[in-house]
């Protein structure tokens, strides 16, 4: 059951199409192939954070400076970043594009991921953060561009959730 390299490559290409120049991230298993592609790209800068909260500060700095950015984290990391999303991004009307690996949802086999999985979408809704769960058949570039456009016009965080079917290759469902 490896991480889908094809899924990672499709997401990377969507980030390129969005002209993403700065990617902050807290790496985790699902995200490693994607972040390797980002790291190898001379036109993108990968900033690896110690804690997801930092990413929201970096997002604000990059936005003020006019540099298109995206902030990659696991859904549990998103839960760790709630306060800065509220009291920096939303308070100051900063568009933050979040790319969140959606652990603990359909097909999850690790029990420890499931509580965060159950809460991810309810918390996003409570925060009024628009979100979209990517599907394997989606045009990922289109979906990422739409998320980026909405964040910039609403001056608000927007989240794209990386589901298991996009990022993981199960031996059998």
């Amino acid at each position, binding site marked *: 059951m490896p991480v889908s390299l094809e899924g990672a490559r499709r997401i990377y290409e969507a980030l390129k199409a969005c002209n993403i120049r700065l990617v902050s991230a807290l790496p985790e298993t699902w995200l490693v192939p994607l972040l390797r592609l980002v790291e190898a790209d001379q036109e993108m800068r990968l900033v690896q954070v110690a804690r997801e909260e930092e990413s929201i500060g970096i997002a604000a700095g*990059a*936005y*003020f400076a006019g540099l298109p950015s995206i902030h990659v984290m696991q859904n549990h990391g998103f839960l760790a970043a709630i*306060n*800065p999303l509220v009291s920096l991004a939303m308070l100051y009307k900063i568009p933050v594009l979040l790319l969140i690996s959606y652990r603990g949802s359909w097909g999850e086999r690790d029990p420890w991921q499931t509580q965060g999985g159950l809460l991810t979408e309810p918390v996003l809704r409570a925060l009024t953060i628009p979100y979209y769960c990517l599907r394997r058949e989606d045009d990922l570039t289109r979906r990422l561009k739409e998320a980026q456009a909405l964040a910039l016009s609403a001056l608000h965080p927007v989240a794209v959730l990386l589901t298991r079917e996009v990022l993981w290759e199960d031996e059998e469902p």
Partner: protein
Amino acid sequence: MLRADALREIYPELERRIVVTIMGAVAAELYALGHRPNFFYLEHSMGLASSLGLGLALALPGQQVIVLDGDGSLLMNLGTLTTLARYRPPNLLHVVFDNGSLVSVGGFPTATASGTDLAEMARAAGMPRVLEAETLAQFRTAVTQALARPAMTTLVAKVEASAPASYRLDLDLLENRFQFKRYLDSLRSSS
């Protein structure tokens, strides 16, 4: 050393540079010296001023960014020292006013009052340059040195736990945000 005096001492250096402050006393005292469109006061999100400064410094390598942080804020996001040290933008000066107190929110002592050494923590995190100041003259010299020879720097300045006469800024936070954004946009379009 009073933080207000330290800010007054370096105000001429701040006038022309991108400045991010934490909330509370630092914001109020800098504002009282004279607001500029290149000053952003992060009126919440304690701990993230340095992360915001990192984003600015990485995105604008031709501009000097100065973050005015505090011990209470930095203690809420110690991981930032490791991230700053790792990416070490040479155009970022991280000033930490250490008064050993949560002075803006009731005055409880912070861990630096009982021995935590933020300068040592910055060194141990791998910060390229760490400076310390206990007097106005040392502070002035340290800032001059940091700005003259670019390198990612954390400057820990020991100050008294003094509070400003007023914490009020006659500037709505969104007004500050849009003004700051417009200032940075104008920098990019003129460069």
